């Protein structure tokens, strides 16, 4: 099957500032992909490149096998909810549904109206008067009623309170279950993604740090605690993501496909959040090193 997103050496620069660097990423279809990273990591840039709101300065990106925004056919296949879920403040909820109906040949009128009714939105209410959560739901309605194959959401819950956040993600999951649509969803909070994603991409310091199915990622990352030791003595298939030492003890987060055989280690599975933080910390450390010049650090 065609990858929902296939980026090769993708880069975007604004003048001298690199928003995204050498991003190579292939997302398989049928997943809810969580794109996580700190603010300013390049998440929005990557998603805007994927929907064709931006054009790359280097490399290529294909979405569902086509060039982003390469024509009406391509636009039809991708639904997008932008950051802060922009809507037309002076148009009513009903106007927005008309907007969707007129601008999308594949518009599912019944679905749209049913969702608005289910959400309890007043069709005559102006979008500018909606709460943040309602506006996000309206934007999601517009994106799914066009019946896309891929739904891309850029920090859709970032501005919502915890209750609205849970409700929004719940609705999103219902849609995924009903329509079998692939989803790429960004957030700077792992907790949001943990509930809904089965695939994870960690973007930090404008590079992809980690990508894979959540279960596999959890299965191959361990926290090792044991007596202090030199990292160069580790087996070759164990990659250290994070290391901290006290005088007598060493704590590591390692990635390995094999079992941990050394009996000196106490082995623990990592939570997704710890894992993401470890990778983001690693990226931050690397960019600090890059800024401070080379330094001798034991690292794979």
């Amino acid at each position: 099957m065609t990858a929902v997103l296939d980026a090769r050496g993708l880069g975007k620069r604004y003048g001298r500032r690199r928003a995204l660097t050498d991003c190579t990423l292939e997302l398989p279809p049928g997943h809810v992909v969580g794109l996580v990273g700190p603010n300013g990591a390049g998440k929005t840039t990557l998603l805007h490149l994927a929907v064709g709101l931006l054009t790359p300065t280097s490399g290529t990106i294909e979405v569902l096998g086509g060039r982003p925004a390469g024509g009406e056919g391509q636009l039809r296949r991708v639904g997008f909810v932008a950051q802060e879920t922009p809507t037309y403040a002076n148009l009513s909820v009903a106007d927005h549904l008309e907007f969707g109906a007129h601008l999308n040949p594949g518009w599912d009128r019944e679905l749209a109206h049913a969702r608005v009714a289910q959400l309890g939105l007043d069709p005559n209410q102006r979008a500018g008067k909606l709460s943040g959560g309602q506006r996000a739901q309206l934007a999601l309605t517009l994106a799914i009623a066009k019946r896309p194959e891929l739904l891309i959401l850029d920090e859709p819950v970032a501005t919502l309170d915890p209750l609205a956040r849970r409700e929004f993600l719940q609705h999103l999951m219902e849609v995924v279950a009903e329509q079998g649509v692939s989803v790429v969803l960004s957030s700077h909070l792992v907790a949001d993604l943990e509930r809904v994603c089965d695939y994870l991409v960690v973007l930090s310091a404008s590079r992809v740090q980690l990508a894979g199915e959540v279960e596999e990622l959890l299965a191959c990352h361990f926290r090792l605690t044991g007596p202090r030791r030199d990292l160069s003595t580790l087996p070759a298939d164990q990659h250290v993501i994070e290391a901290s030492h006290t005088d007598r003890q060493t704590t590591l987060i390692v990635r390995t496909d094999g079992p941990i055989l050394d009996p000196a280690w106490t082995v623990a599975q990592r939570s997704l959040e710890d894992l993401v933080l470890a990778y983001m910390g690693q990226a931050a450390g690397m960019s600090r090193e890059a800024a401070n010049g080379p330094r001798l650090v034991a690292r794979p």
Partner: protein
Amino acid sequence: MIWLTWRQFRMQAIVAAIALVAAAIFIAITHAQLVHLYNASGIPTCEADGDCFGARNEFLSHNQALRQLLGLALLAVPAIVGVFWGAPLVAREQEAGTFRLAWTQSVTRDRWLATKHVVIGLASMVVAGLFSWMVTWWFGRIDQLQLNRFNPGVFDERAIVAIGYGAFAFALGVTAGMLIRRTLPAMATTLAIFVAVRIVFAEWVRPHLIGPAHLAFALNTSSVNGFVSRNGGAPMLTVDPPQLNNAWIYSTNIVDSAGHALTPEFLAQACSALMDGLGPGLPGLGKGPIGVGAPSTDKTQSFQACVTRVGEVYHGLATYQPASRYWTFQAIETAIFIGLAVVLSGFCVWWVRRRLG
């Protein structure tokens, strides 16, 4: 796309329609007063009364402020369209972030922009055209008397050129909004560039659209107007331009058959009788046959002799655009501004597809 364009443009269209209706009512009422004044001034019967000049001046002395106001309003309409319809078209979507919603529907953004451009651009032309038509109608009787259709401030405030200005101002506004991405600065920029382009065009482009015609005329005491001395130089003859109603006269000169201008030497020789009493830079050499106060028979005769002598070698030459070219000029100027609008629109569509994001 037409639906969205209309839905987002609806309020502005209604405001424009109300403004046009209000303007139409105002123009109809003041026009009725104008007709009343026209009849009361005695112009319709002036031939019989024998004082057409007085009747005309009496009529034209009224409504000066109103005439200014209507002229300015017509100059302002295209600018308003550019500033309030053109500049926010893309800039407001950029500011509010709604372009991310609009451009990710199943309509390419170049079609999105092209549709809006065509629909609202045509509306701009209709509004400017209708208002210009009303103003032109209102000025009908005045223009018939003033016979100055090519004058700046008359030419641009009548007939069809406003349609071109409207199209251009709108396209300029869209372009500025798209490049600047902020509504208010885009509005200001649109206004500044529009005014600059209009001034440059009226001053330096319009006179060169068609090569001027020339009219030669004999020099005699009715066409020669007197002596004038510029900047303390030698006195020269000046001529009145011939009476060319509604024509656009660039200049009037005295030249010989080879096209050389009248020289001070020739003049001094031909009119020595008059020149004796005139030193360079002598004051009081303005209008009329020489001298201040009632000209003496003596001097009048000398002046006639002088003009006859000069007229044997030299003739008057007016460089001008005939009144018959009025509609050609209107059409060319309208076409140029619509052409500029089309170029800007094409650029906008290209830019939004290739560059913006």
